[in-house]
């Protein structure tokens, strides 16, 4: 019995020779992370679905040459996804209401703490943090999504973002500081801004 290929590179080689099962295995292994990345970046399930489909279509069509010497296939797929998401954001097509809005968007009136970080493990704290991530400028949002939410290491993130590792570090540091600011501002102004809706930063 032939053992199932383990690595992405093996699966890629097989799929490029027409092995459909190899493609399906590779897709199932990597699609969720790509989908979540696009979702975190755009805030739109429709955009995330489109981006996920286009990423793997590009892989099928071999439109962008993947070089195993330069990095992992996962990082390569994230790189394609990033470009597609940025293209979508530039078009403004993802500028749709955040899905968290609606019944859940009402600001809670109770349990107001001085420290916005105190309830980050509770529902409203998590939603506030998610909104804060989505409202980050693009260059900070993508590094938080990659490193903090998808737990990519800095070397992979640097390849995806096409920048030095030191830049990843500094952007991540700055992004976290911005998140703290946003969380605190949201908590500070919450009572008087109840009618305001969160917006997505398209820069």
């Amino acid at each position, binding site marked *: 019995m032939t053992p199932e290929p383990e690595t992405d590179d093996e699966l890629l080689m097989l799929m490029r020779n027409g092995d459909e099962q190899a493609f399906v295995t590779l*897709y199932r292994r990597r699609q969720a992370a*790509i989908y*979540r990345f696009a979702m975190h970046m755009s805030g739109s399930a429709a955009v995330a679905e489109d981006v996920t489909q286009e990423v*793997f279509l590009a892989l099928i069509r071999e439109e962008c040459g993947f070089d195993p010497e330069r990095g992992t296939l996962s990082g390569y797929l994230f790189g394609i996804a990033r470009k597609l998401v940025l293209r979508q954001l530039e078009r403004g097509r993802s500028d749709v209401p955040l899905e968290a809005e609606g019944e859940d968007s009402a600001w809670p009136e109770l349990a107001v703490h001085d420290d916005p970080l105190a309830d*980050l493990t509770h529902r409203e704290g998590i939603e506030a943090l998610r909104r804060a991530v989505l409202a980050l400028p693009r260059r900070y949002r993508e590094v938080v999504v990659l490193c903090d939410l998808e737990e990519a290491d800095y070397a992979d993130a640097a390849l995806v973002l096409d920048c030095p590792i030191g830049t990843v570090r500094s952007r991540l*540091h700055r992004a*976290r500081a*911005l998140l703290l*600011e946003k969380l605190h501002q949201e908590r500070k102004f919450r009572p008087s801004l109840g009618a305001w809706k969160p917006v997505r930063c398209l820069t």
Partner: protein
Amino acid sequence: MEAGQVFDVSKVFDMNCQEFWNTMPELARHGDRSGHLRECAACAALWERQRALTAGLRTVAQEWGHLQAPARVEGRLTAAFRGHAGLGARSRPARLWVPVVAWAAAAAALVALAMFLVSERQPQAPRRAAPRATELAVAQPLPDFAGNQFGVSGDSPYNSDEFIPLPNAARIAPNEDVNLVRVEVPRSAMIGLGFEVSAERASEPVQAEVVLGTDGLARAVRFLDE
């Protein structure tokens, strides 16, 4: 430092603090090994806030960890892969052994599509004649499909960017989830839909996009490089 107090992120730390924060991302994951936090209350307080933030982000990641692309994406991609794999066999030498049955199935699918396109069609004339009721039904615009109209122009042949409804194909209902698959067919397949194709180019390949309904049957087609 009082709970909830905000640090000025633009604050310039002294050299030791700066060095500490330069390695902050790693510390947030693995803890402070430098001992700096024991000596600097300001950094210690800020670091605690960063740790709380990191924990919150981890919770967000866990909350969203179950998310994945809808199953229909895999269906579309698998269909696209089959089309692409069938095309690639001719131009790319096989580096690994591929079952003959798989290639035969891909070739059969292409032949079936080509035959479907040319079946019961004559060049030009049918489109100028009054279409049958079924054709009229499938020729209705479908505004939900990426802005394209599944219709025919007044005098065929059609505009190059239009999808051409296939004869006897069911109409795509509004809001129906359709799949778009790019394939390559012999140029002769275009004859059946009213295009003029010279005899010497009839065997050339031409790229086409085929709209598949949720039942997997082809509904419409457009040629990309006619």
